[in-house]
Each structure stands twice: as structure tokens, then as C-alpha cells.
């Protein structure tokens, strides 16, 4: 006879630069814990099957579909959600290029694009496509998203160097209210 009594595990992780200690059910996905326990509703459930990318977050700097990862697997890891990218240049390019309509898939795209920028700052069109085809946008034709991403990757070298330096310093992965000393250098 299965029991409905949940077993909780304690979990310590770092979300947008803040240390979080939580108690989570073994079967809870990271997506649910981020949304329900931490109120970070920027990562969206779209399919909960790893197909649409709306729930994408950065785990140790790399994009992960948070619906495919159990919360207990996040022990000790550094995570960044769209809430942690508040002033990011990628976000502002998406806004400026109007690369969204309903906006539901947008956090996933921005987070993914961010991960790409730090992993492959000189990504070519093929690499960009390879990374971004993991997300679905149903409203736009991808034309505006493409233009936004191009603008990020084709930004003037000097401008991009600033973005990258700040990325490395973890500037965008941090809650703005959080003090410099607590930021863990990746």
C-alpha cells in the first residue's frame, strides 16, 4: 500500500546568489520548488517533459530544464533564474527588439541565451541554433528572437567584453539587494 506521507529532505543551494535552505519532497522537481517554495515564478511550466524549455534556469552557469531535475539534485549548486538576470544585457536586448509576445517562453529563452553567451562567447549561427532550438516560442516567428540573439552575439567587441567580464563576476546572477562579499566566484 503506497503512502501519501511525504518524506522530506533538507537541501542547501544558492539561487541568484542567495543561500537557501529548504525541505523538499524527494519527488519534487526543481521547477516546482523554485516556483512554490521560493516564489520564483519566472521559470514557467510548459510541458514538464523537457520539450519546451520555458522552465530553463542556469545551474552552475549552464542551462538546465528545471522540470527535468529533482530539487534534491541541486544540493550545493549555484542556480540563476530570470529573476537573477534583472539588469542583464540579454534581457534588455530582448525587450528592445520586442522579441516576445505573450512572454511566457521569454524567460527560458533569455536564460538559455545567457548560458550560451558565457559558455561560447563567440558562438556562430550554427551553435546558436543548436542551443536555442531547445526552447519553443508559439507566438513569434522566431524572427525577432533571432534578431535579439544576433544583437547580443554581434555586439561590438568592446561592449561584449564588458558583458562577459560582468558575467564572470557573477554580476547578473545575483539578487541586487545581496552584498558583494557573499557572491561565490564561479
Amino acid at each position: 500500500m503506497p503512502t501519501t506521507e511525504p518524506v522530506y529532505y533538507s537541501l542547501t543551494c544558492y539561487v541568484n546568489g542567495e543561500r537557501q535552505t529548504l525541505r523538499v519532497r524527494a519527488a519534487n522537481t526543481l521547477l516546482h520548488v523554485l516556483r512554490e517554495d521560493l516564489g520564483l515564478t519566472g521559470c514557467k511550466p510548459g510541458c514538464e517533459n523537457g520539450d519546451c524549455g520555458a522552465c530553463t534556469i542556469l545551474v552552475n552557469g549552464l542551462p538546465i530544464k528545471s522540470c527535468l531535475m529533482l530539487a534534491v539534485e541541486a544540493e550545493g549548486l549555484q542556480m540563476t533564474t530570470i529573476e537573477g538576470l534583472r539588469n542583464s544585457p540579454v534581457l534588455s536586448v530582448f525587450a528592445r527588439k520586442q522579441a516576445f509576445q505573450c512572454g511566457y517562453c521569454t524567460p527560458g529563452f533569455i536564460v538559455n541565451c545567457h548560458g550560451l553567451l558565457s559558455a561560447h562567447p563567440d558562438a556562430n549561427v550554427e551553435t546558436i541554433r543548436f542551443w536555442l532550438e531547445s526552447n519553443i516560442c508559439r507566438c513569434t516567428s522566431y524572427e525577432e528572437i533571432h534578431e535579439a540573439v544576433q544583437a547580443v552575439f554581434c555586439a561590438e567587441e568592446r561592449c561584449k567584453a564588458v558583458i562577459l567580464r560582468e558575467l564572470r563576476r557573477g554580476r547578473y546572477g545575483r539578487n541586487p539587494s545581496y552584498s558583494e562579499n557573499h557572491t561565490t566566484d564561479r
Partner: protein
Amino acid sequence: MLAIDKVRYFGEPIALVVAEKEYIAEMAALRIKADYEPLPVVHSPSEALRKDSPLIHEHLAKYKKHEQVYPEPGTNIANRTRIRKGNMEEGWNKSEITVEVQVTMPQSDHAAIETRCSTAEIMPSGKTIIHSTSQSPYIIRMAISQSFHIPLHQVIVHTPLVGGSFGGKSAIYTELLAFIASSAVGGRAVRLVLPREQDMVSAPVHIGLDARIKLGCTREGKIAATEILHLFDGGAYSDRGAVMSRAGATDCTGPYRIDNVQCDSLCVYTNHPYSTSFRGFGHPELTFAMERAIDLMAARVGMDPLEFRFHNAIGPGDTSPTQTDLNKSNLGDLPMCIAKLKEIIYWDSRPQVQTSGHLVKATGVSCFWKNSNTPLNAGAGAVVIFNSDGSVNLLCGAVEIGQGTRTALTQILAERLGMEERRIHISTDVDTETDPWLWKTVASRSTLLSGNAVLKAADDAIEQLKNMASIILERTPDELAVGGGRVFVIEHPGIGIEIAQIVDGYKDSTGNMIGGQVIGRGSYTMPDLTLLDPETGKGKTGPEWTVGAQAVEVEVNKRDYSYRIVKAATVMDAGKVINPEMARSQITGAMSMGLGLASREAFLFDPNGAVLDLQFRTYKLMRYGEQPEYSVEFVETPHLEAPYGLRGIGEHGLIGMPAALANGLSAATGASLNRLPLTPESIWRTVHDSV
């Protein structure tokens, strides 16, 4: 809402479990045991019309009808619309050339990335609060009120910024279930979130169509007659499917002048998920059928496909299939759209088909039109409230689903009040308790309906401002104008008063207050619409059409029939473009959806009627990098009843895409591709079947 005795489609809910947590509800639901006795399955609308087909609704005659629909008890016909225009005998006599086409477009999904969800809470007083990701908050309010006998004002519906919908969230579905779930637990707030799989097959889907078209034409290339049979796959229940089949009749000819028309457009029950409105509302489907016929006819007549369309384009002085008189204002300018399309795709400067080794490039074209097919009472209200600093709150019932209507409405208001857009506040939510109504956010109607209401509300506010200022400035209101945050004397713009000084009343030199808060109100209902005559289909179903011409260029690999969509173009008569960037984005987004629909999207059924592809892993959508190069151009022929002459544009970019893609691929392969979706496999099969 929940099946009783008989389940009519795969995914039809049979029980609802309420629990403290989602996972507990899931575990409980898994313990429900249901025994099913398999029944024969009706797989398609054509099958449903066979004499020996099982009846999906045995008691159809006893059903209550909500709208003008004509079900035929004893059959699987949920609605039939007849169009009888002109004289068919005469038409066929004039037709020296005839073609016949049969097409199939399967059911598919809206696939908004946010799935449907709602929350219901019933307060001890009876007040019911619904939160729903919906296009129809005011219809939800009415449905909950009528179904559960709650006074209308006690039902309060909130909609947030909706995560995409494309027609799918205009149907009422989760709200009623959430309500009964809440009432089962004493009114506590219950949230119902559909997982993707249920969102795809339990909730209503995009309608399918089997159609047969016979087209007659003179040797000179003038279309003389058409006979059309539409069998819409309404699925197991009548949601909007029945009304969509009517829409499919009213514009059945496409934007062409055809004097002799006979059309029977049926919505047919099948054992498929039930159908509801989908971007284009019956028009992508009818257009696919008609445009395939038009392309074949152009080839038979020996005319260039765009020339043939230009030659037969409907124009002012003609009548629609429902015998509405057409003029420049209600119709727009299709020939101009075709001419402009020709330019932007370099139609005349290169062959339609170009072969290079095993690669064949070809361009397919199509034309479309769409009227709104709205109920006679479709309308909207708007309220403009001035804040004490002279800024404005705009209240209206248009749901923001990413289409940008609320932005367009603030632009319209800013223009009328002569003030900056950033001084106008509009929320992204709708609350039926405080916001004036809009029928529904559908049919590319919101900017027309709410826009006209906003203009009236603005004028009402302007009148109040002028009246107040006239006392202070000692002028008549006629001598005054509003703009730049001031009310001023037209002849001497230097003389005036800041709006901020009078919007909450004005304190005169003696300290006395005159007037009070300025609140403008406006409402609008579309005038002069009529029901259709049940025998001939004569009637007026909407105020205006949006017309346009589209093209798709493909590159086909003749070895395996894989293909690449290279370019896609649309020229649309938008009446007046309010926000150029957003307008383009609406159109390219709709084109992308149309290309996805035509190239890959379809529900696949097993022999028992179970849907096989109910996840995005198997139900494929367009992804980043697949997008072709898009070209969008506008023609602007004002629609005189609309704010600044605008026409609906939200759905229309989709309408001609399936047809243009099919026409392009047919030209490239030399086969008649009349079944969607056009996957390499289905093309290969058609090519090899026709040999």
C-alpha cells in the same frame, strides 16, 4: 463537463479529484477504477455521414440550442449552413472548364506554451471568484451565473496576462470544472492546472476539415460557378465548431467574384477531441480548399496563378457569398495587395519553378479574406479615469494575450487626448468587477470594439474638460481644445489651463470647488449585423473584411521530398496600421503558425481513437532556426467604422499559409498535394500514388 454513461472522445474527463496537493490528487486519481465497454469509433467527418455510422449523440433532438445552429437529429450533423447565391445552372452553362478538388486538413492543437488553468473560490455569501487564463472573462461570468444560478454580479472573473491562446482559451473549460471542484469542498479555493497532455486532448482543439470543391470557369479565365461541401470535424461535442462551420460558409469562395455559389458547410460529430475557435476561425481551412482549386484552375486555363487571382479578385460593387454589398470601406483592396506581393517576391522576374540537380525551388501563392462572424450583440465598453496629476487610467475588457491590443488602445487614447502614451496607465489584467465588458478577446475584434469605446470615452472626457475649462477661461466649450496636457483656446493656444488643475475639480480664487473628478465613459456595439437566412445564407455577419495575398517559397529535395521553407511573404490591407512593429510581429507569428500547421502539425489517432502525439516530443512545433525569411507589407484602405480606419489583423497572417505552402510544394513536385500536414513522407506517398 464530466462524461456520464458514455465517453465520446479520448481524453474526456470522467472524474475530478480534489486534494490538498497536486501529487496527492494524482495518487488518488490513479486509484479510480473505470471499466469501459468499447464502442465503435467514428474517425472522420466523412465516415460520420455514412448511413451506417454510429450516432455520437443519440438524443440530439432534445439538446438546448444557444446560438443559431441547425443540428440534424438522427445523424451526426451538428450544424448545417447553406449558401445559395445566383443560379447554378446558368453558372455551369457558362463554365467551359471545371475542376474538382478534395482536401483534408486534420485536427491539431493550439499549443499555447502556458496550459489552461483556473482557480475557483465560492465565498459563504455566494460570491464566486474565478481566476482563469482565458480570452473570455465575461463569457465565463455569464456561463457560471447561468449554469449554477448565481446572480451575474456575484460572479467575479479575473484574467491575467495570458500565456498565448490562439483561440483555444476562448472556450470555457477548466473554469466550470474548477467551480464544481470548489463547491465539492465547501467553496475553498481550488486550482486546476492542465498538464500538457490534457491541455492537448481533453481541452478543445483546432478544427479539421474534409472539403470538396467544384469550380467552373470560362475559357477566358473568369470563374462562373462553384459548388462547395465542407465537412468540419467538430469532434465529440459542439463548442465553437458549429459556429466555425458557419464562418466557413460565409466566406466560402475566398476573395473572388463568383456569381453562382452553392455551399453546404457542415459541422460533424466524430469521436475526436472537440473543436473550438482557432486563429482564423474556419478560414485557414476553407482557404486551403479553395486556393488549391484556384491553383488547379489557373493551370487548366493556362494563366499565371497570381494573374488568375488578380483577374478574379472580388471588388467594390460585388456581393459576398452571403449577399452583402461590398464597397471599398468594408472590403479593402485585394488587387493592390496582389500587385504589391508580385513586387516583393520578384514574381515576374523569375520562373515559378527552378530546378538545380535534385533541388527544386518553387513559389506557391494564395489569397485570403476574413470577416468576423461575430454575434449581433458583440460590443465593448471603456472608462477613462483622470488621476489628480493629469495622468489617465484606462479600463477596458480586452484580454492581453501577447497580441498588443492594450498597447494599441493606449496609443488610440493618447492620440485622441493629445497626450503622451507614458501618461496613460493600463493594466495587463482584466477584472469583470471593475472593467467594462468586451464580448470576448477574439476574432481580431478587440481593437475595433474596445478601440471605438475608448474613442467615445475619450470624447466624453474631453467634453467634461472643455466644459469645466470654459467656466474658468470664460470661453464657450467650442472655442477650446485638449492637448499637450492642457485645455486651451484654439485661436490663442497660449491661453489655457493645465488638465491637472481641473481633473479633480477646480478650486476658484474664492476657494470654492467647482466640478469633480473627470471620468469618461464610452461603449460600442457593431451595428447592422443580421442572422443568416437558413435557406440561402443571406445576411451580414461582420462589419468588414481583411484581405491579403501571400506567398511561400520552398526548396524541395527530390530524392527524399524533404524541403526547406526559404521565404514567406504577406501583403495585407490593414486599413490603418496602429503599431508597425507589433503589426508585423502579429503577422509573422501567424505565418509561422500557419507554416507549422501545414508542414507538420496533426493529431494522429490509433484505431480506437486514442491520440498518439500528445506531447511536444511527438507533436512537433516550429523551432528556432527553422524560420524562413519573412516579408510583410501593408496596404491601407480605411474601414470607415473603425478607429482611424483599422482592420483586424491578428489572425490573418495564418490564413493563406497552408494553401500557399501546398501550392508551392505541388508546383515543385508536380503532384496535387491536398492533404495536410505536408511531411516529406506524405509528399512521397502522394507522388508515388499518382504515378
